[in-house]
């Protein structure tokens, strides 16, 4: 006889009770019970070729004994008291074998949430037919061009308890549409993300992708060198992602691999960056995996670095408060912003930014970007989905794929940046359980971008 599933609240409570029973008063635990559902419809050659849905309930347990001996565990085996008792027993055994960590930051204790999240029920319950309809709209709007991409809907509900009395709950949803339209030698892309599937205009995205592809036909290379560039929001997202993962990450500062200079005019005054996880429409739970409520964290104000993202450990090491950026991987990769937003500027539209280039490049998207020098934030990567040569403020011809090797920190130096006025939410993989994060970013015009190669050599 298989046990009936418990509610998330009952599940988390049962695990915490089991921790107390097996571990006694010395055992300190954070228990997180989650139910996640993800559905993704993928298309290529203008046909749906992969279409998946999965759902699971997972219990995550962080268990500490003796004030600093900690082990983590998670399981999708959540039915019945025996499975939960096994989870606790194995984790307790592991924790007792560990040496005591003198830097264990302890439990946070009760902390009020400002909200319980902003899930959209219609997105959580979207059907395969709903997603197929969105895909069909993208394909039709591409006007006969071959298309490829995906439409995803996801939902997450979670309860977190700890031995110090914390009890928080929340839910979130997300919807992402990301697709390309293709002509020989030219792909165009358009993508968007929201908490609501109904916010995504798949037809408009398909039409935009097709227009970009048509404008990219007969691309030719340009010589390597330093070019002024306009980065469309998709490409600018990569710059923001590079900064929040490798520079404004509290662990990178602790490790000495961040080149951020807090309090100095390191960037152009047009640059202001926040992690705006509590913002209306933000994707993600209202608390992190340590139960700390998410908060708005200012990272750069008018070009001056003023903040970092932290979890409880890095916060203690840096003498700060946790900003609520702990994740299941933050022990390894550090606490990373989950909803970064680059403030819009006075640069106007993408066309306005292009009009300000004497000779440079308009770049839609970056691909396969990897750190070459972490401290200087030097990244190498390639352009994708369209590059155009700009002369005298006019797009004159498409350019084939280019490789760059560029310091993201130095690209945003004082005097080098004009920030566009229009913000388009872009999906990016940063941190958290939803797969994609929202990055709110306008287009950027930068004084120099180091092109180090092209696909001809």
């Amino acid at each position, binding site marked *: 006889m298989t046990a009936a599933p418990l509610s998330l609240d009952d599940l988390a409570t049962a695990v915490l009770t089991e921790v107390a029973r097996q571990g006694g008063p010395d055992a300190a635990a954070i228990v997180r019970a989650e139910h996640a559902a993800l559905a993704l419809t993928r298309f290529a050659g203008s046909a749906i070729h992969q279409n998946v849905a999965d759902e699971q309930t997972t219990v995550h347990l962080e268990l500490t004994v003796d004030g600093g001996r900690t082990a983590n565990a998670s399981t999708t085996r959540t039915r019945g008291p025996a499975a939960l008792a096994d989870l606790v027993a194995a*984790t307790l055994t592991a924790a007792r074998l560990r040496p005591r960590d003198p830097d264990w930051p302890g439990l946070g204790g009760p902390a009020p949430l400002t909200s319980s999240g902003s899930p959209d029920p219609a997105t959580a319950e979207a059907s395969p037919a709903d997603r197929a309809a969105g895909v069909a709209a993208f394909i039709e709007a591409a006007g006969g061009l071959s298309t490829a991409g995906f439409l995803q809907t996801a939902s997450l509900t979670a309860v977190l308890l700890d031995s110090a009395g914390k009890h928080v709950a929340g839910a979130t949803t997300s919807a992402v549409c990301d697709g390309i339209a293709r002509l020989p030698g030219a792909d165009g892309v358009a993508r968007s993300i929201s908490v609501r599937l109904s916010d995504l205009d798949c037809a408009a995205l398909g039409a935009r992708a097709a227009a970009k592809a048509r404008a990219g036909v007969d691309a030719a290379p340009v010589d390597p060198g330093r070019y002024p560039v306009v980065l469309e929001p998709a490409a600018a997202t990569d710059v923001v992602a590079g900064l929040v993962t490798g520079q404004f990450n509290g662990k990178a500062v602790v490790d000495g691999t961040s080149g951020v200079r807090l309090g100095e005019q390191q960037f152009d005054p047009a640059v202001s960056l926040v992690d705006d996880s509590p913002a209306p429409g933000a994707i993600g739970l209202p608390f992190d995996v340590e139960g700390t409520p998410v908060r708005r964290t200012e990272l750069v104000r008018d070009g001056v670095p003023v903040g970092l993202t932290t979890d409880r450990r890095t916060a203690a090491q840096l003498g700060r408060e946790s900003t609520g950026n702990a994740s299941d991987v933050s022990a390894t990769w550090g606490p990373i912003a989950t909803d970064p937003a680059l403030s819009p500027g006075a640069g106007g539209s993408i066309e306005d930014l292009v009009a300000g280039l004497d000779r440079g490049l308009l770049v839609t998207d970056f691909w396969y970007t990897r750190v070459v020098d972490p401290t200087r934030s030097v990244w190498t990567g390639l352009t994708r989905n369209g590059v155009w040569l700009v002369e005298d403020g006019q797009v004159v011809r498409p350019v084939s794929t280019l490789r760059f090797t560029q310091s993201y920190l130095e690209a945003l130096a004082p005097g080098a940046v004009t920030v566009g006025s229009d913000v388009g939410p872009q999906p990016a993989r940063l941190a958290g359980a939803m797969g994609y994060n929202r990055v709110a970013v306008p287009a950027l015009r930068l004084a120099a971008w180091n092109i180090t190669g092209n696909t001809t050599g």
Partner: protein
Amino acid sequence: MGTADGMPDVGSAAFDAAAAAVEAALAAGARYADARLVDRRHESMTARDGDVRSLSQTTSAGLGVRALVGSSWGFAALGDPAGDVDARRTGARATAIASASAAVPGPPMELVAVPAVQDSWANECLEDPFDVPLSEKGDLLTGVTATMRAAGVAVAEALSQAWDTRTAFVSSEGARIGQHVRETGAGMHCLTVGDGETQRRSYPAFRGQYGTRGWELVRELDLPAHAERIAGEAQALLTAPACPAADTTLLLGGEQMSLQIHESVGHAIELDRILGWEAAFAGTSWLDLSRLGSLRFGSELMTITIDPTIPGALGSFGYDDEGTPATARDAVRNGIWVGVLAGRDSAAVAGLDYAGSVRADGYARLPMVRMTNVGLGPGPHTLEEMIAATDDGVLMEHNRSWSIDDRRLNFQFGCEIGWEIKDGRRGRMLKNPSYTGIGPRFWSSLDMLGGRAAGEWRAWGTPNCGKGQPGQVGHTGHGAAPARFSGVRVGVRG
């Protein structure tokens, strides 16, 4: 196919659930269905600067069902299914999703035939990694990180991981296969921080070495014997001259060669990429199917195999996740492209008669074309012979960064450490070595290939190959030895 250490411990209840799911998928209208009941255990321990920093244990168990309606696929997965009812519900859901896919259908599609096998398979595992006491693992990892810290590095980290995966596979064609795969690996690295720079050294590979083996793999790595050496090298790199910018002769160590193969050959020969199925995300391939069998990919020294039968290699298995038996075949033979990584559907679309390279990351993910063991066979030379035969060049070892375009042509790799090669001798240490090139041009410049000396050729394991939407992490293997290339651009800077 025989088993290495007895019948896998895949219970009959798992097969019953998978069979019920397949039955329900067919009853709902699918013309083909398969189901995997996967029970997976993972353990990860990290240490930093002499202390265990994290210890994580994960168990995941669930059911994943694939259903084919017309030419359209559907996939549904459920964690911890409660017997027959949940299994049938998941099977029917897979068919319902496939029916929705059929609203935007592709061209007619069949599946390449595979035998309906009833078998079991397990890899050899001399010392079960889950039987090794956590205290012993902790002592190993804390010990090597303490050694590196004592040698003056800023950060010293070490990692061990182990997976135990039991799979029950059932297909509507009659296949019924149990597999038990155990994988183990470990590694360490250290960082030194100078004036505005960070240097890194790792052993035995930048994310460790992994295989379908037991804890004996970790013992053979002998991490303690290398901790002080890599710490010293990381310190020395801070004051070493930078790799100069030049077009020169490039010698690569075996570990870097494994990533070179993975990125510029392994992904390029994935049939789903070649067919455009990954165009929007992972990308396509520069390879054109019409030239399979005639295209020159590299020099005569270049023979690449797809071989999931290599004992102990990380990409080895008995059957892939479509039930196709593991079979070795050439992908590149003496420089000519002759084979691809394929699945039953993609092979049929391409007019090929073989599959066998479809794998899934756990129960909740759709099986898709993945690398197995894609490796370069050993060559006739040794590294010392290559150095002796080089008047002017650079030797680079251990990957630090990698980037390649969406057609798998233009790559740029950074390595942790380099050495100047002058007049047939290894000279000064060089920091920040990097190189860039175009795949077929680069591989055509392969003029010496190691592997003749003992230990030079090795099946390296890559435990973190990302692909797919939703994202999947694959475990791949790459046989590789040191190699020499001529006329390569090195010393690329930002």
